[in-house]
């Protein structure tokens, strides 16, 4: 008789039962986000709007990593590669749009957000397909090392691409165009970024509760058992890896637009570390955890850098303490809200 993980079956069966919390929470969040720019201007600190846009972008990036790291149990230490790739797609397409000569001789440049975003998602997804197909041949610690190494490889590639700025990066003079919106205005850009983030998290929630998401969770808990019941675990892991890469590409493309600048720093391995920190602060394998982690980390960075440039001197020990003594991150404070992992 096969021993069945009772808790897991219960979770799988409990999915259709809806509680009103997520709906109410989403509505409340959208209302707060809509009011936020007015609030920021009212307290006389409009720079908060840009900060919030950055948080929304990092929330997407961290959530995308969380799909493989938290839900799938694949500890990728190279997620910045896809983030940076998304950024460079925007930067390179804009660069060719500005200069007029097509990329590789046949792909015309563009500054249309509706084209650059999907392009960034596709390119990052393809990159994740190649690197993931190789990296997923191993697991455990070698997987961590390999994902880190491949990301570093890409970092060096962009450092050496003098045609696209090399070390100095690439300036995107104007943000991409979306319909007739005034994207140069931070408030408009904030609404666009938050809107995309809300849609992203909505799709993400559907995904992790789908059969695919459940199988992914099963692979995290016991890969051998999933293989034994006839699931091709490699394929599921690879698909998850690609979806995660696409999410990071989306976030990177938005970030390039927000900061009007891309540089190899976006692919630096510490950026991958930052995304992991956001997840562990918020709670691994939770829906909203990465977003909360992004709020905390970006917020801390902004406020502590005004106080000392050596803020990472304090972040390091705090991170160690969080790892050693906490269980489940901030999301464990709100059980119920999709905060439970198992």
């Amino acid at each position: 008789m096969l021993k069945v993980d009772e808790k897991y079956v219960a979770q799988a069966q409990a999915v259709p039962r809806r509680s009103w919390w997520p709906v109410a929470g989403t509505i409340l969040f959208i209302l707060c986000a809509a009011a936020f720019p007015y609030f920021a201007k009212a307290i006389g600190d409009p720079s908060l709007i840009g900060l919030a846009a950055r948080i929304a972008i990092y929330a997407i990036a961290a959530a995308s990593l969380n799909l493989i790291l938290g839900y799938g149990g694949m500890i990728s230490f190279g997620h910045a590669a896809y983030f940076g790739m998304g950024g460079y797609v925007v930067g390179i397409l804009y660069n060719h749009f500005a200069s007029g000569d097509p990329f590789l001789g046949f792909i015309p440049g563009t500054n249309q957000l509706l084209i650059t975003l999907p392009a960034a998602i596709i390119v990052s997804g393809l990159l994740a397909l190649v690197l993931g197909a190789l990296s997923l041949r191993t697991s455990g610690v070698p997987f961590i090392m390999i994902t880190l190494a491949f990301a570093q490889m890409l970092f060096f590639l962009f450092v050496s691409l003098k045609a696209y700025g090399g070390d100095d990066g690439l300036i995107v003079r104007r943000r991409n165009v979306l319909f007739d919106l005034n994207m140069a205005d931070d408030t408009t850009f904030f609404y666009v970024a938050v809107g995309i983030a809300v849609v992203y998290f909505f799709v993400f929630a559907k995904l992790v509760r789908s059969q695919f998401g459940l199988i992914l969770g099963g692979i995290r808990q016991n890969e051998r058992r999933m293989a034994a019941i006839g699931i091709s675990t490699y394929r599921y892991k690879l698909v998850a890896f690609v979806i995660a890469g696409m999410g990071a590409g989306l976030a990177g493309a938005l970030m390039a637009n927000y900061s009007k600048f891309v540089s190899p720093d976006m692919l630096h391995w510490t950026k991958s570390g930052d995304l992991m920190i956001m997840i562990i602060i918020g709670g691994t394998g939770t829906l909203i955890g990465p977003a909360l982690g992004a709020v905390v980390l970006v917020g801390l960075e902004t406020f502590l850098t005004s106080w000392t440039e050596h803020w990472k001197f304090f972040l390091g020990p705090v991170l160690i303490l969080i790892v050693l003594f906490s269980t489940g991150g901030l999301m464990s404070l709100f059980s119920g809200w999709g905060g439970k992992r198992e």
Partner: protein
Amino acid sequence: MTLALEQLLNGVQFGIMLFLLAAGLTLIFGIMNVINLAHGSLYMIGAYGAALVAARTGSFVLAILAGLAAAGIAGLLIEFLVIRKLYNRDHLQQVLATFGLILFINEGATILFGRTPLFVSMPPFLSGSVEIIPGIPYPTYRIAIMIVGLLVAGGLYLLVNKTRIGMLVRAGSTHREMVRALGVDIRLLYTIVFGLGALLAGLAGLMAGPLLAVQVGMGEQILILTFVVVVIGGLGSIRGAFYGALIVGITDTMLRAFLPSVFKTFMAASEADALGAGVSSMGIYLVMALVLLIRPQGLFHAQG
């Protein structure tokens, strides 16, 4: 031809340096099942310790002792305060906690020593060059590094394969519970292995000082190369670390030395330099990808 031989030797020397780091990393993983990102920080601490003492006292011997002591003490502190609590945790927690250590140590070093790199002068009796083959001079210092590295590699081989501690290390890496059940103080063994790894990293760091600039961030640069070495060689295998390190060292050095001139045959010189540098820094990762395709467990996967 002379140049090729010289670069080959440089590659071997770089490989031996990488081996010192990779051996510690792979030993620590093999026996404790811990991934230690802060291994590169120990390398940096060794380099700083030696560089500062060398600048103050001018004594080469004192500098070596200081570098080793700094790395060793830092290693024991790290083991005692952080790593010891991570033995039974999952790899994600190990990665994040040791990443926290990197942030702390790097920022700490920046606060203490600033961002400007330190340059260390070579000890006078090693600063000349020797003719390895008549007509081909080669820096003595690099030869010294190779000799020290090979001695350490040999000593490590003897230690692991011929001594009682080595026996426990080998037993601990395959049958941890059994070793514990037989009454061996596994904690002490862990501390010894971690300290040994820290000393090796510190040794690599202090020897690298006169060749490279001693600066914050030098540890992570070489840490990632060390990961490549360990993945190519097979995690947990010291023999694999040795051959992996030589492969990475030679490949990297040769590509850096010769790829730009290959590109120059069909490109403008400045672009060829940049692209050559970029592609050659990608070279070892492509080797790693190749190894993954053929043998996902690495070339010398440790059994068990």
